[in-house]
């Protein structure tokens, strides 16, 4: 993490804890959850820190109850968050579909672990497709933010609350066991809201106004089609307004790595090494996985010789990269399911590709 100018307060915290600090800073006073490794720091932190500030921490009997607690509290117009991992996130799919269909904001944090099934607690990016294609029924979408540092665990959680309210839609923060469990210094920058606080649609009792509802059922002829088009326009708008990514050493990069979260973080080390060797490699790091930075990826691919997709899975974001650009022939993949690629492995692959594409790369034997 680039150092903050001296004088600015830095905290040493786990990524999971930074999520909590960010949520509380963003005004979240309701957390519901169910234990699962490797995200237990989050409910544990919230159970200790919410009650003293008048917030509510409630452990649910299951992830299904959890997501429906969220639905109820969100329908009440309050900011609310949950967190889970793998199996727990799968159990929330019906509820997420309902919340998207009912246009309810909430933040869901997935500190993903290994799968499928019980899998294991090793770090993984195996839930990418579940998150961005939306594992629930009916073809909804939600913003998916991918932090690659403790600093971003803090700041992107705050952003997630704003996006959720801006679009009246669930938003997901997709981390992994490494980002969640590691500690590193971060600067708790102040939260500046970008959305109005009022939620006139909230269910607060129909005093002085007609009754209103939060629902996803549309049975009358064509109602549901119209509702789906409405949602679709909302998702398009996200694609126009919310794309976020970090270009890293992209100046004249002949080899462009596309990676997110921990995989991107590790890639940075390898890129530094390769650059020192004069190898023109850079990275385009998607920060929003949905909306995906398709245009940026396409342009990068157009100008590069190789696009190297690196993921901690067997190739999921890879599909979005292929869908983003016509330059399929330039795309390569380096994947490690349920394990973190080492800087050494990535560095070696960069060299191999540099050789392959016969780039000018001083220092490469």
């Amino acid at each position, binding site marked *: 993490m680039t150092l903050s100018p001296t004088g600015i307060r830095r905290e040493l915290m786990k990524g999971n804890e930074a999520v909590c600090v960010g949520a509380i800073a963003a005004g979240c006073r*309701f957390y*519901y959850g169910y234990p699962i490794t490797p995200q237990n720091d989050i409910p544990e932190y919230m159970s200790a820190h919410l009650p003293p500030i008048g917030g*509510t921490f*409630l452990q*649910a*009997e*299951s992830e*299904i*109850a959890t997501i*429906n*607690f*969220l*639905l*109820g*509290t*969100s*329908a*009440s*117009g*309050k900011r*609310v968050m949950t967190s889970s991992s793998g199996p727990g996130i799968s159990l929330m799919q*019906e*509820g997420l579909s*309902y919340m998207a269909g*009912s246009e309810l904001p909430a933040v869901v944090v997935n500190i993903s672990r290994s799968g499928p099934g019980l899998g294991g607690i090793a770090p993984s990016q195996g839930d990418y497709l579940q998150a961005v294609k939306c594992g629930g029924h009916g073809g909804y979408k939600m913003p998916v933010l991918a932090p690659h540092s403790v600093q971003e665990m803090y700041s992107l959680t705050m952003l997630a609350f704003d996006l959720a309210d801006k679009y009246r839609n669930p938003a997901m923060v997709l981390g992994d066991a490494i980002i969640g469990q590691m500690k590193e210094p971060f600067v708790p920058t102040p939260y500046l809201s970008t959305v109005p606080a009022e939620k006139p649609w909230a*269910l*607060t*009792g*129909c*005093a*002085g106004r007609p*009754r*209103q*509802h*939060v*629902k*996803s*059922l549309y049975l009358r002829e064509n109602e549901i089609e119209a509702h789906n088009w409405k949602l679709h326009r909302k998702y398009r708008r996200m694609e126009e307004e919310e794309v976020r990514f970090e270009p890293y050493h992209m100046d004249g990069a002949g080899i462009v790595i596309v990676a997110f979260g921990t995989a991107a973080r590790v890639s940075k080390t390898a890129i530094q090494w390769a650059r020192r060797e004069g190898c023109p490699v850079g990275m385009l790091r998607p920060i929003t996985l949905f909306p995906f930075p398709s245009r940026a990826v396409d342009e990068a691919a157009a100008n590069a010789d190789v696009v190297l997709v690196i993921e901690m899975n067997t190739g999921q974001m890879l599909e979005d990269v292929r869908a983003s650009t016509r330059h399929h022939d330039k795309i390569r993949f380096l994947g490690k399911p349920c394990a973190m690629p080492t800087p050494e492995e990535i560095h070696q692959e960069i060299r191999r590709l540099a050789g392959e594409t016969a780039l000018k790369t001083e220092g490469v034997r």
Partner: protein
Amino acid sequence: MKDGAKETFPRQVFKRPDSLVDVRTHFCPGCHHGIAHRILAETIDHFHLRENTIGVACVGCSVFLYDYIDVDVAEAPHGRAPAVATGVKRAQPDKFVFTYQGDGDLAAIGTSEVIHAANRGENITVLFVNNTTYGMTGGQMAPTTMLGQKTATSPYGREFRNDGYPIRMAELLATLEGTAYSARVATSTPAQIRQAKEAVKKAFGMQIREMGFSLVEFLSTCPTNWGMKPLDAQKRVLGEMSEYFPLGVYKERRQADFV
């Protein structure tokens, strides 16, 4: 004629409760959902709660609760109404929060949510309409379906060795610490309807006095899926159904027990 009525008999002694929206319902002829809805609306009026209430609709024939009861309503996924109500009540403890659920919704897919809401002593009120079948989906077997009863998915009649036993939710929930009130009523005679109103008032009262979880189970009818005339459906309620699902109050917390 109305006017004629007005002059001879000036006092209207029965009218639609204010909280019951003045529209035709989609319920089948003789379906008791209509009676339960009316009792609910009457009780909301009785406590002047209309502007202070958030209802939670379930998935079932009563999913259109929000078209009929003139209060704010959230629609819950099938079976999850008590969880949604929990989320509402935790966010707005000052509001009156109820769920209205069918027996497939509450006693099958929603078992866990209602049991833990009760066990937490969640300060909400649950109206539970038991018609021994899944009405909206066309009359399949429910956990409350009687032994021997033929349904769309028990064409040879429910058999305990394969399908288990009709489950008695009012009794089950009464065993939990957090439950303040649990009663079973029916609406097949005028007298039963009066008792049902009393039970619902009691249940509302528990929440108003913050005594914890309250539930009223209605033995209802589903003439359509039972393949019966409405009057015969009522006879069934008064007969075999009330025998297996005895009417009564299974738990009623007195202030004392609480703290």
